[in-house]
Structure formats: C-alpha cells, structure tokens
C-alpha cells in the first residue's frame, strides 16, 4: 500500500477484472501509455499557445510588409485620394484625435463620478444592485448597437447631425462601463483602515474620498481610462453609423464639424478591390497601432510614476 504502483494495480484489478496477462507487465505498458500521452498533450498545449502568439506575429508582419510602401510624412498630411501614393490619413487622424479628446472629456468625470458614488456613497440595496447589473450588461452590448443608439438619439433626436460631438457622446456611452468597472476595482482596493484613519481625524466622507481614497486609487483609475480610450480609438462600427462618411477631404476644426476617424478610413481602403489601395489600409493600420502603442506606453509610465510616489 505504500507505493503508487500498488494503487494503480489495485485500481486496475478492480476496474478490468480478470485478465490473462500478469499484472506487472500490464501495468508497465499502461504506465508507458500514460507517460506518452502526457508528453503528447504537453506538446499540444504548448503549440496552442504558440498558434496564438504566432498568429499575432504573422498579423503584424503582414501589416508592416504591406504598409511600409506608402508610409511617409505625406501619408500623415494628405487627404484620401484615388491615387494610392498621394493618399493619406490626415482627416482620420485629426478626426480620431478630436473624437477621443472629447470622449475623454465626458467619460472621465462621469465614469469616475459613478464609481465614487457606487463605492463610497450608495447604500447597499436593490437599487445599487440594479445599477451594477446594468453596467455589467452594458459592457456586453455589441458596439454597433451603440451606433444605432447614437444615431437615433444624438444625430437625429438632439439634432446634432453627423458631427464630432455626436461621435464623442456615442463613444462615451460605449466605454463608460469599462471606466466605471475599473475605477470601482481601484477604489475597492484602497484598504478600509485608510478611510477609518481619515474619519478618526474628523474628516467628512467627501474629504476622505478626495484626500485619501482618490489619490490611492488614481493609478488603477488611469489604467482603466487609458484602456477605455484605446478601445474607443479602435472602434469602427458605431463610428460608421454616426459619421457614415468614408471619403472626406477636410479635417474637423470643432465639435460641430463633420468628421471621419482612422478606423473608418482603414475600413474603406481595405474594402477596395484594388491591392494598392489595400496596402494604403495597411499604412493606416500602422499609424493606428502606433497611436495605440503610445497611449498604452503612456499608461504604463503614468502608473509607474504614481506608484513610485506612493512608496
């Protein structure tokens, strides 16, 4: 009863009953099979991960090979054109910056405010549970549905038209759940003893939130905001429903101008049957990925800086 082999023989004998082979030989073969099976699946699991990572590498390589052809300073400063070498992403780049800037302007106060309310002020009752459930559900609503909502409410009912502001408001609703959930997590992570310390010094709840909880939660909140903005800048479907413009030869100068964004332009180029124009789409993707990468690098930098100060 002391070795695992004994266990296996007992188990084997119990399950398979009488057998013409001596138990030891059968056990050895069985053990060899199990070891081979272990090795086989180990290789399979490792290759699954490699498939994922490899596919990402192929995707990026493909985009960079296709995209370098037309990528130059002119690409950033030109409007789209029928001629691939003259085409550029200027309208989309400036449009994206406008839309994302305004989205951040709306999302940060609303998202962080909602998280503060839910974590620090709201009573733990059915109403809070409904809001919480609702936020979780909103995070799973397909983005094109937000496009329909934004079109019907901001573009049509509010009469804004297909302008930057309507796009930004739509994206705000789309990414709010991300910001709220991330900010709530960050606020939850602040130990209760910190709050108790503040109250013991006679601070009001609002003072505790402002001077103790928020400074501690800022790195987590920042990560959530940047994550949300990265999501927003890559969104195509709802922006198509709002803007409906794919070929725009001017860039917006204010919140009430018509606009396009980088993903819409990339979509439009990629949908062209002409291979040269598809390569222009790849150039656009490189610009989009560089913007995304810069945002994420910024997020990591901010997080590190805040964390250092805290220590």
């Amino acid at each position, binding site marked *: 009863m002391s070795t695992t082999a004994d266990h296996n023989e007992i188990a084997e004998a119990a399950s398979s009953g009488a057998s013409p082979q001596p138990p030891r030989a059968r056990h050895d073969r069985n053990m060899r099979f199990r070891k081979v099976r272990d090795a086989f699946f180990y290789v399979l699991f490792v290759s*699954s*991960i490699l498939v*994922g990572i490899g596919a990402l590498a192929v995707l990026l390589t493909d985009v960079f090979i296709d995209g370098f052809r037309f990528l130059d300073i002119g690409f950033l400063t030109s409007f789209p054109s029928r001629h691939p070498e003259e085409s550029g992403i200027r309208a989309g780049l400036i449009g994206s910056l406008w839309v994302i800037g305004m989205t951040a302007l709306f999302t940060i106060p609303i998202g962080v405010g*909602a998280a503060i309310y839910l974590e620090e002020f709201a009573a733990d009752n059915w109403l809070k549970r409904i809001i919480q459930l609702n936020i979780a559900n909103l995070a799973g609503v397909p983005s094109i549905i937000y496009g329909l909502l934004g079109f019907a409410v901001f573009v049509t009912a509010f009469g804004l038209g297909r302008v930057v502001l309507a796009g930004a408001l739509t994206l705000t609703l789309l990414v709010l759940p991300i910001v709220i959930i991330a900010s709530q997590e960050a606020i939850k992570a602040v130990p209760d003893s910190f709050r108790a310390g503040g109250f013991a010094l006679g601070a009001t709840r609002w003072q505790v939130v402002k001077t103790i909880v928020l400074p501690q939660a800022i790195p987590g909140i920042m990560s959530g905001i940047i994550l949300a903005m990265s999501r927003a800048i890559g969104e195509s479907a709802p922006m198509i429903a709002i803007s409906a413009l794919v070929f725009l030869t001017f860039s917006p100068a204010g919140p009430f101008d018509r606009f396009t964004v980088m*993903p819409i332009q990339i*979509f439009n180029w990629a949908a062209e049957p002409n291979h040269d124009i598809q390569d222009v789409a790849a150039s656009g993707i490189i610009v989009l990925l560089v913007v995304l990468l810069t945002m994420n690098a910024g997020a990591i930098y901010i997080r590190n800086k805040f964390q250092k100060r805290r220590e």
Partner: protein
Amino acid sequence: MWALRLAAFISVITTISIVVILIKESIPFFREIPIWDFLTGTSWTPNFVPANFGVLPLIGGTLLVAVIAGLTAVIFGLASAIFLSEYAPDKLRRIIKPILEILAGVPTVVYGFFALTFLSPQLQKIFPEMIVFNALSAGLVMGLMIMPMISTLSEDAMLAVPKSLRDGAYALGATKFEVAVKVVVPAALGGIVASFILALSRAIGETMIVTLAAGASPNLTFNPLESIQAMTAYIVQTTLGEAAHGSIQFQTIFAVGMVLFVMTLVMNIIGRIVVARWSEKYE
C-alpha cells in the same frame, strides 16, 4: 452629490434608451412586415422587388461565423489556459499572458483587413473554388480575436480550483495531464462554459471582421466556404448605403439590431448565471 448620483444613473438611462430606441424605430417596420414573417422567413432581399424580409439568413450567417470562431477559440483558448494554469512556471506565465492579451486589444478593423487580404488568399490555395469573401476566414480570425477571452476566463476558473484537489489526485498516482484534464477542468467547468458563452456572444456582436471578410450575400447555408452576410454587417452596409431615412430599408436596421441585442443579452445573462452558480462551490 446629485452629480455623482446622476453619473451612476446614466448607465441605467443608456439601457432604457437602447430598448426604447430599438422598439420605437422598428415599430413602423413591424406594421408592414408581421413579426412572425420576419423571424421565420428564409429570404432576405430588402432592396429587391419584391422585397423579402425574413431574417433567418442573417441570423444563420452570424451563427455560422460565430460557431467557427467559437470552436477555434475554445480549442486553442482552453489548451492555452490549461498550459498557463497547470504547466507554466510563474515567470513564463507573466510573459505569455500580456502577449495573448494584445490579441484582445487589436482593433477589429485590423482583424478584418487580415482576414480579407491575408487569410482568405491563403485558404484559397487549399480550397480553390472558394471566393475571397467567405465565412471560414472571418470565423477563424474572429476565433483568434476571442481566444484570449476564453483563455483568461478559463484560467481564472482553473486557478480557483483548490490545490487540495490536485494533491489528492497526485497522491492516487495521477499524472500531470490526468490531474489537469480529469480533475481541474471538470472542477472549473462552470467557468470554462461561461467563458465560452461570453466569447460566443462577443463573436455574434462583432462587426468589422464579418463586414470586411464574410461577404454581403444573405445566404442560409452551413457551408463555411460560402459567402454570407451577418446581422452586424447588414447594419453597417445599410448605414453606409443610400437607403433614405424613414424608408422601410432603413427601418430594418433597428429590427435586425433588436434581434442582435436580444441574442447577446440572453447569452450574457446565461453566462453570468453559470459563473454565479459555479463560484458558490468553492467560496
């Protein structure tokens, strides 16, 4: 204080607005086309004469792509999750996880581009009769997109399985693979199933991959080599098209949007119920 409360209520207002808008904007459509004909019709030709408004080809197209994506993602995602949770040393896991999560952060239009300009031409070498717009390449690339979702959520579920269960199996002489597949995976099955449902719901709502790569031919088929049209792709096509605001063609996008909203909502709710049921077991 009232401002904070309002901020929290905006999410509730958003949900109510989505439901109200989808119902209000599709009522004129359902006055013309009985809802039963819409839901059971097998022909979708809104721009032809006579026009047919049977949504099944769009639902079928969506599901065909989503099932291909789901199968791809569950095979590779689950295997990755087993490796990360049961085999990988901590250091390696901390390198691999962020790389896999990059996959979830790539904008969907990039995946659409990849499916259309890279994967489809490659697959055409294997299936020469396949046209460039097809359900297969859209589905495979979408599988790549939702794979990190399945692997992350499944891994979380597996990490939550108590160590004592593994130790018990090892003490009985089980090998590493047997512990992973016969003990940990069954114990984490709730979380794994939930991750699959949530990923499938994401696949159903995904827009740009199917718009770019799966085609624009509403086609009720189970053949992944054919061109189809997904619900989301139809909505995009119509918003970009010439359909006049207020015309029945334009109203269809809200009716189709309603089907899409209900499908994803139901799946998300089921996914969350599965998670809640399962997490009670160990806490």
